[in-house]
């Protein structure tokens, strides 16, 4: 048989490609449920990590079932808000946002041709008092996303965990792999009144005399990963900016009490309210 015949070549390649495509489609469909279960457990372990229930390795090491169980135990409230900070609906039990859903909301926040509707942003309140919100954006090679948790004052960062699809190993991938980078966020304060809610700065964040990071909304970027650092900075600004009204509206009021000279947190002091 002449295998160099044109008709033979075209038919041969067509048949091969169709067989391979059908096989891959079949495998992809039959494994989808398992893959989604793994992804969900991974997403939940990322949220638990950012809420400081342990390191990512510790939490993931529990196994999928135990991670879901821990989440069910520790979650207090989970709901969806709009850009004004109003609660739209409660999330179903065990419902979380996959990276794909975050991507859709990212378009909705930023607007433009890919916008499909008004943003619906998830908020997760954990029983240890921390509020966890997601972030999503573009790194150098692909999407980056993650979770940040805030203490009860709704501005001090309790923890952060970031993930990525294809950042450079050893450089941009450090947003996920380097625990010391994620540790830098802890204790810093987001500035929800500003457009730059949080900044990842080149050349070092401001330090005090003892060489410790000043409590502000700046941390040091990753050397050799300028684009990933900038992408993460933009992602955090976009998402925390979208949550700003919720955080500012629900933050405990801190007022100076004229009578005793102390700061009171979380309670309204009537004597300072001026009725008009």
């Amino acid at each position: 048989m002449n295998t160099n015949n044109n008709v033979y070549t075209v038919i041969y390649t067509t048949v091969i490609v169709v067989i391979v495509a059908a096989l891959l489609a079949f495998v992809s469909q039959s494994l989808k449920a398992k893959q989604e279960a793994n992804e969900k457990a991974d997403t939940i372990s990322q949220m638990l990590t950012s809420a400081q229930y342990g390191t990512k390795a510790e939490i993931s090491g529990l196994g999928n079932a135990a991670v879901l169980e821990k989440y069910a135990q520790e979650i207090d409230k989970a709901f969806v808000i709009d850009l004004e900070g109003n609660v739209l609906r409660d999330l179903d039990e065990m419902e979380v946002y996959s990276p794909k859903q975050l991507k859709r909301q990212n378009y909705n926040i930023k607007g433009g041709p890919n916008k499909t509707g008004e943003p619906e942003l998830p908020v997760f309140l954990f029983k240890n008092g921390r509020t966890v919100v997601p972030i999503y954006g573009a790194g150098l090679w692909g999407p980056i996303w993650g979770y940040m948790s805030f203490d009860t004052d709704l501005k001090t960062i309790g923890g952060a965990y970031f993930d990525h699809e294809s950042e450079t190993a050893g450089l941009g991938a450090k947003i996920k792999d380097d625990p010391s980078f994620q540790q830098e966020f802890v204790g810093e304060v987001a500035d929800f009144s500003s457009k730059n809610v949080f900044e990842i700065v080149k050349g070092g964040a401001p330090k005090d005399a003892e060489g410790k990071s000043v409590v502000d909304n700046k941390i040091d970027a990753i050397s050799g990963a300028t684009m990933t650092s900038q992408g993460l900075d933009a992602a955090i600004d976009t998402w925390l900016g979208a949550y700003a009204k919720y955080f500012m509206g629900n933050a405990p009021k801190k007022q100076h009490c004229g009578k005793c000279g102390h700061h009171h947190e979380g309670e309204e002091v009537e004597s300072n309210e001026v009725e008009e």
Partner: protein
Amino acid sequence: MDAKLKETILNPIFKGNPITVLVLGICSSLAVTVTLKGALVMALSVIVVCGISSLILSLLRNTIPGRVRIIVQLVVVAMMVILVDQVLKSFEATYAIDKQLSVYIGLIITNCIVMGRIEAFALGNKPWPSFLDGVANGAGYGLILIIVAFFRELLGSGTLFGIDILNRFGYVPNNLVILPPFALILLGCIVWVQRSIQKDLQEK
């Protein structure tokens, strides 16, 4: 087993090792050797992809049109790589390791060992020897990966398979070992050792 078949299996493991002698697959061997677990999964993936792609293409070898043979090889290898990636993603035990290896599983398709063995061996030999050749070359690659990963994880993290070995004796993990350049140095040392044992490899 006849001598020729034995040679097919043993040659790629040491005498004609794809990494240290043919110098193929260097890129991924620098990238995935930070932990033993990662190296092991990568090695097994390459063995599966290499073995089965060689088998399929050897079965098809007399029907493949000569002018598009590279494209047909590419389609088959890509299919195997995607299958391996999908399967790794589906199991709880391998999901995390697949995420850690991320692009490198997908990049097995660019590993010169796979296409190199298909082009050089599978297209001219019967299915069974081709399959063994693919597996053996994957194993030769995997062997070097595991040797490199053993030293990198032991010295870079003080652990083996994530189990603490050196840290309990007050060992401070060496960060240089974690970085890819150290893998290249280690690889150089392995080539050095092999060339001093195998004198015929030395250039005059």
